[in-house]
């Protein structure tokens, strides 16, 4: 580890480009505006753009054929787990290189990518029409610069198995707990609330989503945790989580089961209510080929406090690394992916990637191509960013403090107070810069 760090650090230091000053941003050709039409209408023909994407992007071999025919640019897609993509970006960018020409990034990495300057600024690449059409663009901006094109609108919505839940109320978190207790008592489902509480990112998301659903925030404007206040929604959310687990409504094995296996469990009929879900998971749970509960999956608005159903989005974006080898060609591909037709096609045939352009969502709903579109439309009216203040560069450290503490607190049967105090203590130790 000493040698790896030494070699990576030796190649890094001050080599990262500051935002907006990446070499190709100054060339003009990367901007691709109509005024700077190249002499050759396929100026990047023959180049191959490499994409690094997580496994839920199921691009078929013929998907990029039209793009290649139009531009002469070939596209190569490599699938890799999201965490591994992050590691690839960190190690290659620190060493002054890039893992691919286009990479998928999670919303939680924007602060890191932005402050390290590892992105090609897309502020002037995306035209105003597209920017105005993407409601969550601010999630992928850093200090006013666009770090990535929001591409997967992974907003959070809940889902139920109607075979277990029936007509029981699930509109508030309190009702969810009561309904889950009734389902458990009836013998229909031993652990009605489906989630993972392992020492991983999803545990943090579960708590944050509940906080938002209760009308709260995690941090104030000065980055102090609201958790210190026992009347705060974030404290209440933690209390609900502990109550669900300690009442036997959540499978104790959830402390060690990863996110992917939880979905499989739900599809197999184990579990009744999933608070932290998304359109992609609802799609998967309703897949007639792989799901036993395909006829019983129903999305519901995120249960809140009775006055709201606030949710948040944990979207993904497409970023061109600052040191991408084929930056201009990557820009062409990115602009193609941002078009309405391609976003629609990506949703319909390439893995159910929920679009980020509002006009596309509207068109899909009106044409009947968006299953459960009415519920989605209703939920999308109450979506808030996770951190209204912007993405902190130290989010990874904060998230680790949260998920390791919640996981440990549940395992060792801590009180909510002790768990909250530990999260506060660890968060205050983070050097926020």
């Amino acid at each position, binding site marked *: *580890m000493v040698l790896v760090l030494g070699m990576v650090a030796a190649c890094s230091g*001050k080599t990262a480009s500051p935002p907006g000053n990446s070499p190709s941003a100054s060339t003009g050709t990367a901007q691709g505006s109509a005024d700077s039409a190249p002499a050759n209408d396929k100026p990047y023909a023959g180049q191959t753009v490499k994409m690094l994407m997580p496994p839920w992007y199921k691009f078929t071999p013929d998907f990029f054929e039209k793009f290649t025919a139009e531009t002469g640019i070939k596209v190569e897609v490599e699938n890799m787990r999201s965490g591994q993509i992050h590691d690839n970006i*960190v190690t290659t960018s620190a060493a002054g290189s890039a893992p691919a020409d286009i990479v998928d990034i999670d919303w939680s990495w924007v602060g890191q990518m932005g402050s390290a300057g590892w992105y090609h600024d897309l502020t002037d690449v995306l035209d105003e029409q597209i920017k105005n059409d993407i409601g969550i663009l601010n999630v992928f901006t850093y200090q006013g610069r666009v770090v990535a094109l929001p591409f997967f609108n992974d907003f959070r919505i809940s889902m139920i198995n109607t075979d277990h839940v029936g007509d029981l109320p699930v509109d508030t978190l309190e009702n969810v707990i009561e309904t889950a207790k009734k389902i458990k008592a009836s013998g229909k489902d031993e652990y009605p609330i489906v989630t993972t509480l392992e020492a*991983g990112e999803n545990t943090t998301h579960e708590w944050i989503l509940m906080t938002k659903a209760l009308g709260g925030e995690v941090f104030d404007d000065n980055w102090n945790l609201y958790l210190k206040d026992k009347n705060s929604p974030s404290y209440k959310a933690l209390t609900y989580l502990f109550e669900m687990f300690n009442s036997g409504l959540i499978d104790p094995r959830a402390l060690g089961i*990863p996110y992917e296996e939880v979905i499989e469990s739900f599809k197999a009929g184990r579990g009744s209510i999933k608070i932290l879900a998304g359109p992609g998971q609802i799609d998967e749970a309703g897949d007639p080929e792989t799901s036993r509960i395909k006829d019983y999956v129903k999305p519901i608005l995120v249960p809140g406090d009775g006055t709201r159903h606030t949710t948040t989005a944990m979207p993904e974006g497409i970023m061109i690394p600052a040191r991408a080898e084929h930056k201009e060609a990557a820009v062409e591909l990115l602009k193609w992916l941002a078009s309405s037709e391609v976003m629609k096609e990506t949703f319909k045939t390439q893995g159910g990637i929920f679009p980020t352009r509002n006009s596309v969502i509207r068109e899909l709903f009106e044409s009947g191509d968006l299953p459960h579109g009415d519920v989605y439309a209703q939920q999308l009216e109450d979506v808030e960013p996770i951190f209204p203040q912007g993405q902190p560069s130290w989010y*990874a450290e904060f998230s680790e403090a949260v998920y*390791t503490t919640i996981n440990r607190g549940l*395992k060792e049967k801590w009180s909510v107070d002790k768990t909250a105090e530990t999260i506060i203590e660890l968060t205050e*130790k983070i050097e926020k810069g």
Partner: protein
Amino acid sequence: MRYGDAYLLIAPFVLLIVLFVLIPFVLSLVFSFQNMTLTDPDNIRWIGFKNYERLFTDPSIRRVLGNTAFYVVVTVTFEMLFGLMVALLLRRNFRIRFLVLAVMILPWALPPVVGGVTWRWIFHPQYGIVNVLFERWGWISEYKLWTANRWMALLLVCLIVVWRNLPYVSLILLSFLQQIPADLYESAAIDGAGKWQQFRRVTLPLLLPGITIAISLATMISMNIFDEPYIMNQFSMDTMSVTMKNYTVAFRDMKFGYGMAISMMVTALTLLINFSYIKTMYKEEAA
């Protein structure tokens, strides 16, 4: 051969060691005294021993050091005990000895990730064979998450590490056992020494260099484990090793300076432990 020729022959390897070992090590040491954070690349400055001071105040460091110490003590103990037993068994000639040797090496030959994933599925809380069998035999009433309890989780990781390293330790000890002349045992038998006395007075003293090497290597491996605790329990503090902590600090939090201080600490501890082994060996030999 003249000395010049000899130096010329080893020059490429020395160059490789300098480029890929010495220089990165020195750079790591230098950076460990800086506040190198990848998210603030224009603000790198010398901060003295602050990163090292943080090692003493960071409660998570104490925890991961405790976990790592547990791994080292338990895995090295069992690897040496079982390794010696296996080596003694394999020293004998029997018909399928070579086949046993070939199969035995398999856990060591597999990438640690593959072994870790295999064991994870064996102990899987929903589908694992251990849960299936234990429930069928009435030893448990319902399927368990075996990593829910911290000590069980630590022991599980140790089990996987011992399973992986046992062949390696056995082969080291076997190679030294095979060098012990047979006539020493004959002489001991003539002098009236029983099996246990032969083991204590002949085998163990002559095996000491092999034991030292095996313990040193086993310790270094256990000090640096990553795959097994990660695969079994993700980033849970219950089982996080110091190498995992190093990874999260450097590559997730992007605090390279602090990460390098952790690396230096691990290096110093490993060197200290190995130095004490070697010193003990030379003391025994001199005695």
